């Protein structure tokens, strides 16, 4: 059974993520209409929204501490929020501002918050090996920290993930792999890319524990993750957990989704894990006022983060030359601006 306060925390995280992305979407589209231009507006570049994935982030991260490591893929916001990443600095990062988590160098696919040990990679499945490394560090140092790698169901065909399963398994590392199965990898439905319906089955070939949560349900995820994270924390080795989620939007902003049947789009809208959890909350005696409070707290936090971020200054062009190394080679710096090659366009 899940304690009511935990249900509320998950709910708040999920609502925050959903509202956050709705606001991002608005901001993102600014300057990109009527003709869509990915490089225009206050948030340029690709933007992958996770609406419909919230239960996975919230249900798993509910079991994590600040000293547990999480790696996320290209669709990271809901996980970042559930892991406790600094929302203001994350937003500033997405807006490409100086006070962003990475000073504007990373953007939405490259969110790093060392305070809560959160990192992303935009390359499919390549967050898995570093998560295994975090698990290895925990084992070497004899702590009870764990590491969790999130990935999409489209990523379970990638060598980086498959090798990681084996390495974590043979070294008995405290790692949990969480596959968010939203049925689609951009335009490719799962059945076109693998013969296995249940992605957790990949675990069988490597002798590690596998489980799947079939419903897009935060409580079910919470329960399955308690087991998986608990095993890792107790020194009982890695797990692979697949979680059904739904992609409520295009793969990225600007995706026309012409490839996707209308029924599938509709179904994704109907299976809303947030509504489901709200019903659970009510069933657990949480009243309307409390729920409204949670929602408005989420709303305020989101607005505050976005307003703050938009107020932040843009980075200086020359900041681009910093941070290649933390020990920059003294004397010889190849990356220094020289008059001719980097005079700047602005």
């Amino acid at each position, binding site marked *: 059974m899940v304690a009511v306060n935990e249900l509320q925390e998950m709910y708040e995280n999920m609502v925050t993520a959903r509202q956050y992305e709705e606001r991002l979407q608005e901001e993102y589209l600014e300057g990109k209409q009527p*003709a*869509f*231009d*990915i*490089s225009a507006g206050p948030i*340029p*570049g*690709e933007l992958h929204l996770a609406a419909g994935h919230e239960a996975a982030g919230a249900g798993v991260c509910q079991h994590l501490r600040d000293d547990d490591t999480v790696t996320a893929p290209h669709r990271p916001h809901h996980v970042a929020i559930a892991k406790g990443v600094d929302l203001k600095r994350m937003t500033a990062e997405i807006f*490409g*501002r100086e006070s*962003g988590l*990475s000073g*504007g*160098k*990373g*953007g939405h*696919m*490259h969110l790093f918050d060392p305070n809560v040990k959160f990192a992303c*990679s*935009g*390359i*499919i499945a*390549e967050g898995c090996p570093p998560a295994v490394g975090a698990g290895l560090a925990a084992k070497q140092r004899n702590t009870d920290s764990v590491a969790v790698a999130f990935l999409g169901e*489209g*990523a379970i*065909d*990638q*060598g*980086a993930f498959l090798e990681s399963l084996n390495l974590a398994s043979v070294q008995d590392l405290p790692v949990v792999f969480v596959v968010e199965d939203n049925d689609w*990898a*951009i*335009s*490719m439905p799962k059945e*076109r*890319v*693998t013969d296995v319906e249940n992605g957790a089955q990949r675990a069988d070939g490597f002798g590690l524990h596998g489980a799947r949560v079939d419903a897009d349900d935060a409580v079910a995820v919470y329960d399955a993750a308690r087991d998986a994270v608990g095993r890792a924390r107790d020194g009982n080795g890695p797990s692979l957990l697949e979680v059904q989620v739904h992609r409520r939007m295009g793969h990225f902003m*600007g995706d026309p989704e*012409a*490839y996707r049947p209308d029924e599938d789009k509709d179904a994704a809208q109907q299976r809303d894990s947030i509504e489901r959890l709200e019903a659970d909350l009510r069933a657990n005696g949480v009243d309307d006022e409390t729920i409204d409070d949670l929602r408005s707290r989420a709303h305020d936090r989101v607005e505050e983060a976005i307003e703050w971020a938009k107020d932040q200054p*843009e*980075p*200086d*062009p*020359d*900041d*681009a*030359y910093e941070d*290649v190394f933390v020990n920059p080679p003294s004397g010889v710096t*190849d*990356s*220094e*601006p020289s*008059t*001719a*090659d*980097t*005079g*700047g*366009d*602005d």
Partner: protein
Amino acid sequence: MAQQEDNASDQQADRSLTMSRAMVEAIAHEMRANDEVFYMGEDVADYGGIFDSTQGLLEEFGRDRIMDVPISETAYLGAAVGAAQEGMRPIAELMFVDFFGVAMDQIYNQMAKNTYMSGGSVNVPMVLTAAVGGTYNDAAQHSQTLYGTFAHLPGMKVVVPSTAYDAKGLMHNAIRDDDPVVYMFHKRLMGIGWLPAPDGPKTGVPEDDYTIPFGSADVKREGADVTIVTLGLHVHRALEAAADLADDIDVEVVDLRTLVPLDTETILDSVAKTGHLVVVDEDYRSYGVTGEIIASVAEAALDDLEAVERVALPDVPIPYARPMEDEVIPGTDDITEAVRTARGDE
């Protein structure tokens, strides 16, 4: 039927095409002519290629020849190698060139070397297509060109079109070539709905098939004072810079079109005339294209050289935020400035 190009700049055609349409036209032509040609990649079927590289082909050729594959670049690029060794003529797409790292062994140790390692008894007639380039704030893992990385390793021909006309002729040649060809198209030039292209790449394109031989650079603008050697997107920025400078300095713009083979002759002829060499590319500055071009000229014609300049991405990963990305990706102004520096007027 097929014609060999005489002189690209002489060619006229009633219709202009975007670069992506021109590329797709060549592919469709070759697929009609030869059953052994097929295209494989992620999201190339229903989606038509994230960068429109296969738009409309599924309808004509069906799923067996326009083939979506799992996110397993090693497996499917290697499968293209295997199919090519059987005598088929696969075109395999690496969605972003930045992903080369997950499959580089198949690319450089198998595709590129099997011909040589077999003493020529085996050959690998495949085309590896990949999208390259930045300018839309997609950050460090999705904005690279990596020209130098591919051109450095022997056994692959490396092609980088800058206009629709070139894109079509080079693609015909690539598919007909009996060796592996890496065909790198710049996202910004394709004319994709969500990423507006500049005017330059949209050119007249003959309806008939024609080939542009590899190893023939194209003088996109003649000039007497300074030679700019460049490729891809930066052909257009160089032309812009040349136009800006036209009153003071008469700039010649050489579009390499292929990096392997490299048309040293055209470069040397131009430098013999101008004495001033500016090399411009969008790849990292050190150990890459700009170094190679300058060294080739220094080796062959040191006495012709009065000044050299290079304009490239400084040795930093590509930052996300607009001011920093603008700073590191060479702009028209950077080129103008380098040309002036080469001429000694700062």
